[in-house]
């Protein structure tokens, strides 16, 4: 009935896109776990990453240096994230904790609209493609698009780096401690505003990285962050808000389900399969696979 090759190829492409989705979800969950706020403008940081990648490849470095453009794009989004935290979010955190969620939601939604309109105003509603001159990669008998393989490899590297820094560095210890008690780390002499700034920068840089990596695949236009953001939030619901392993596992799971559904049921409903999984999780485990109920003091 179905050839083994088709199944294997579908699984591989599902895992590959899932890891990219997981980058988005990781950014959302990481910012939430440190700052206890949702950044609704995540897709716009993805969008900025993709525009930076396009601009660098098309105008400055040329297509052969695409690999150099990727870290530069991600670093650009990181720097922009620092500015956003310093100028827009830090003032919110001087308010009492009860009001923060609401303020943060309004501020990041406003930022979403502003950045989208700016992109349309500056570059028009056009679609750009940085193209990719990467050759098709053969895995056994199966051809895989070079740009997708490159994106997958870069994303894996970024995830490994992120994990090692969080697990084994002093700054990682400060980040983990902040995620568990903001008061506690201040008594240890840590400036939480400084931690917030880095965390927000890193979180949005993960989105920017995904944008830069997927620019040749999903193209570059003002609302291109929408789909991946929706996927990011789906993953966060499946994996559990605030859980880093949850984001990774749910990311791959979502990629797999979409890919298998598209190949063996109907590719017209690709986005439905993920939502079905979200509904199933909400019924069976409302906190997500790895989420914890409530917050610890």
């Amino acid at each position: 009935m179905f050839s083994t090759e088709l199944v294997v190829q579908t699984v591989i492409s599902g895992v590959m896109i899932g890891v990219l989705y997981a980058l988005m979800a990781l950014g959302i969950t990481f910012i939430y776990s440190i700052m206890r706020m949702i950044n609704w403008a995540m897709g716009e940081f993805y969008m900025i990453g993709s525009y930076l990648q396009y601009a660098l490849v098309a105008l400055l470095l040329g297509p052969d240096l695409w690999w150099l453009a990727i870290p530069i794009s991600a670093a650009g989004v990181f720097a922009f994230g620092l500015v956003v935290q310093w100028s827009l979010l830090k003032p919110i955190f001087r308010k009492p904790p009860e009001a923060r969620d609401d303020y943060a939601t309004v501020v990041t939604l406003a930022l979403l609209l502003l950045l989208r309109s700016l992109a349309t105003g500056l570059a028009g509603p056009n679609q750009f493609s940085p193209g990719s001159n990467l050759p098709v990669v053969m895995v056994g008998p199966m051809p895989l698009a070079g740009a997708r393989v490159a994106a997958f490899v870069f994303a894996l590297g970024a995830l490994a780096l992120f994990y090692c820094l969080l697990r084994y560095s002093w700054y990682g210890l400060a980040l983990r401690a902040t995620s568990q008690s903001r008061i506690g780390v201040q008594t240890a002499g840590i400036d939480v505003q400084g931690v917030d700034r880095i965390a927000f920068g890193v979180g949005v840089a993960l989105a920017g990285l995904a944008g830069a990596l997927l620019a040749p695949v999903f193209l570059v236009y003002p609302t291109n962050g929408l789909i991946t953001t929706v996927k990011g939030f789906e993953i966060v619901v499946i994996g559990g808000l605030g859980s880093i392993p949850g984001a990774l596992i749910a990311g791959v799971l979502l990629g797999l389900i979409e890919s298998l559904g598209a190949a063996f049921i109907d590719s017209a409903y690709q986005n439905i399969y993920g939502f079905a999984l979200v509904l199933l999780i909400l019924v069976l485990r409302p906190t997500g696979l790895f989420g914890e109920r409530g917050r610890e003091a």
Partner: protein
Amino acid sequence: MEAALETIGLFKRFGGLLATNDVSLAVERGEIRGLIGPNGAGKTTLVNLVTGVHAPDTGEVKLGGQSLRGRGMHEIARLGLVRSFQVTRLFGNMTVRENLMTSFLARRDREAGDGAGQTEGMIELTRLGPLADTQAKKLSGGQRALLQMACGFVVPANCYVLDEPFAGINPVIKDAIIDMILDVNRRHRATFLVVSHEMAIIRRLCQQVTVMMEGRVAAQGTLDEVARLPEVIAGYLGKALE
């Protein structure tokens, strides 16, 4: 001589409640001062004002003669003032060892290398060895309180403000905490302000106590002196202090 910890005319109002009303006190270097008073007397508010959780409406806090006005919690902590909380503030998903390591985050450059040696020493001292790689949220209440104290003591500070360190803890762990306080006090001449309802422990630790009632300093002296004062007895609803 300059007091190690001094508050000058602290006022703090929460809505209609005047939580601290002109609180002035001075603790000498190396002193262990008790802070007692009935529930709602403003003791925890005073601790929060001293450690920068709240800013006073008027008045000032000085640490070793240096004003803490306008400084945040983390800056005050870096100046060498460590506090403990009534409800423990540990990092629940991190291990006992990692919790201790966080104490070196801000101070590892200055004093103590990377803190690995001191951390192991403290694990041995507190006999938490078998639990060193256990998540803090899995500890018992007493073990958590002990760990919180250990986090404060693993890097010696100038000044400690301890809010109810003995509440709801078994006697063995109480003794361990008392020993740690006396040890740091003796070796580093660290200054302490200890809030507690446990009069036996206060008597053992503190030469001087300050009594707070309804937001003000009602009395100061040795525990036996203040226990005889009629207004103190009245404030404790007529119960003798024991």
